[in-house]
């Protein structure tokens, strides 16, 4: 009986999640924005990497930067406090709308980080090793 409950629920949940799998689409990529897959005039999420040297600060807290998926690029405009983890080369997710000129007006900027934790000295040493290899 107990085994039946556990197995039954697992199968039911598994099937439900499998069906939902296609719909759990966290964000669109810059390529999908450029080729028109992403809908305009509605709030969507755009994810990508911040292009080095593209961050431009404007008046007050306004800022623009370029996001890339290494294929296409989209310029993002945002006004507000950026998360601490926001930096060049960082993977981020923004939520907002596309305007008519193809610029992405972000209402929210979220920074993603990976599972690596290390002291700054170790990171510096790693970078030196990689620089020597190249």
């Amino acid at each position: 009986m107990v085994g039946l409950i556990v197995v039954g629920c697992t199968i039911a949940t598994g099937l439900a999640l499998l069906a939902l799998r296609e719909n759990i689409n966290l964000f669109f990529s810059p390529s999908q924005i450029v080729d028109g897959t992403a809908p305009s005039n509605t709030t969507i999420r755009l994810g990508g990497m911040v292009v080095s040297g593209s961050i431009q600060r404007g008046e007050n807290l306004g800022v623009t930067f370029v996001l890339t998926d290494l294929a296409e690029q989209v310029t993002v405009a945002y006004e507000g406090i950026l998360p601490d983890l926001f930096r060049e080369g960082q993977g981020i997710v923004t939520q907002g709308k596309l305007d008519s000129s193809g610029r992405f007006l972000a209402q929210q900027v979220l920074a993603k980080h990976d599972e690596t934790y290390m002291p700054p000295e170790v990171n510096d040493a790693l970078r030196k090793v990689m620089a020597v290899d190249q």
Partner: protein
Amino acid sequence: MSLPRSDQSGHSDISLGTAFHRLGSPPSVYRLATQLTPWFAWAAVACFGIGLYGALVVAPPDYQQGHAYRIIFVHVPAAWLSMAVYVVFAIAGAVGLIWHIKVGFIVARTSALIGATYTFLALATGSIWGKPMWGAWWVWDARLTSELVLLLLYLGYLALDSAIDDRRTAGRAGAVLALVGLVNLPIIHYSVEWWNTLHQGATVTKLGAPSIHIDMLVPLLIMGIAFKMHYLTVLMLGVRAGLLKQEKRASWVKTLSPAR
């Protein structure tokens, strides 16, 4: 009436079943819990002392997050325990359901209270950290949502348990709910792999070497043990209180000296 009154002692099969029931009888569980409490409590104090010193003083800052990453020394053990306690909670409920051992229901109920606390702690510390680092208090990504479902499962169980007056019926109904919720545990653990989440992937509990520096890993693991010892301490206290409440009319309770 010299023997302590064991619950469901009507079973006639001797051997393993009898020994199992005697072991799970309220007086012997009460005695064991009383003996174990100070050991777990002192182990918890020692591990929290060493772990917090290591976490806040010895461990170096992170290359990206600086000192703000130190919240993981509370956040990660709380999240680990929120799931580990759920396993104990569901197994204890199943033991009560299958073998009619009432102590199982007491362990389940106490574990649910502690588990709900850890789950809340994991969600709250993650949220406090998430605002400055991610840029949002809350995101509906798979990891955060499944952990919230875990909290709702605990709270749903506690609500169900307190809504039914008969202790045996409440225990059985709660145990079924606990078993149904078991399916959520693999979803929480693998959510960061199955879906594209804002939450990071596994650092320690993954195949291969942990991607965290050893000076940070050691205090993290000690804090993990500290949380486990804290859980066991509170579990022992809760089980003792639960047994006294349930067996208040039993002869073995009356023989306990009031000085203890």
